[in-house]
């Protein structure tokens, strides 16, 4: 599964994209796995309410299932326009 990071999430984690192998069933489970991995993930995911997630390029929720999902993206609230 590809994981993408944008804006300050990308900066805290230090890479824009990585590929992981995971058994996580939901976004929340994936986040817990990442947090457990390294301090930089714990820093980026410290406050989930400050983050948004997209699954295969559609906005989604942290309790959404990951079945069949190929690309997960984490980022702060968007500031377009």
């Amino acid at each position: 599964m590809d994981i993408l990071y944008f804006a300050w999430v990308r900066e805290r984690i230090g890479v824009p994209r990585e590929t992981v192998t995971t058994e996580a069933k939901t976004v929340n489970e994936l986040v817990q796995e990442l947090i457990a991995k390294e301090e930089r993930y714990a820093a980026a995911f410290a406050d989930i309410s400050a983050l948004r997630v997209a699954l295969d390029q559609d906005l989604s929720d942290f309790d959404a299932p990951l079945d069949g999902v190929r690309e997960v993206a984490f980022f702060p609230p968007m500031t377009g326009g």
Partner: protein
Amino acid sequence: MKIVVQEAPFDFAAEVEEFGQGRADMGAIVTFTGVVRDNDAGDLDAMEIEHYPGMTQKALEKIAADASARWDLGDVLIIHRYGRLEPGEKIMMVATSSPHRKDAFEAADFLMDYLKSRAPFWKKEHTGGDASWVDAKDSDEDALNRW
């Protein structure tokens, strides 16, 4: 419907000239243009705009389609830039045409509200060697409840 996401500047005059050209059934055209605004101290060096290439076009198309489903529109145009922009540069524009003034206005206002909070762009301000990400405002999220 025309959706453009690009790093290069866009030609605002040419875009509005082309938009709605040759349509005698659309009585109203509204455009909104966003410009990089200098900060109060007047020392903003640049605004850096990051986006999520795979998702951006798709998200903008959805927002434009939602507007078209909701109002009586002849056409919708969205142009949004990314990369490094200087104060005074145009970041983005939307245009709507409709037989009716109210529809054109409301749809443009709606597009802007959704572009702000639902299109995957992030802004970073560069000021005298410092850089900081622009925070989303609660009011931007609240604005979506108007629709």
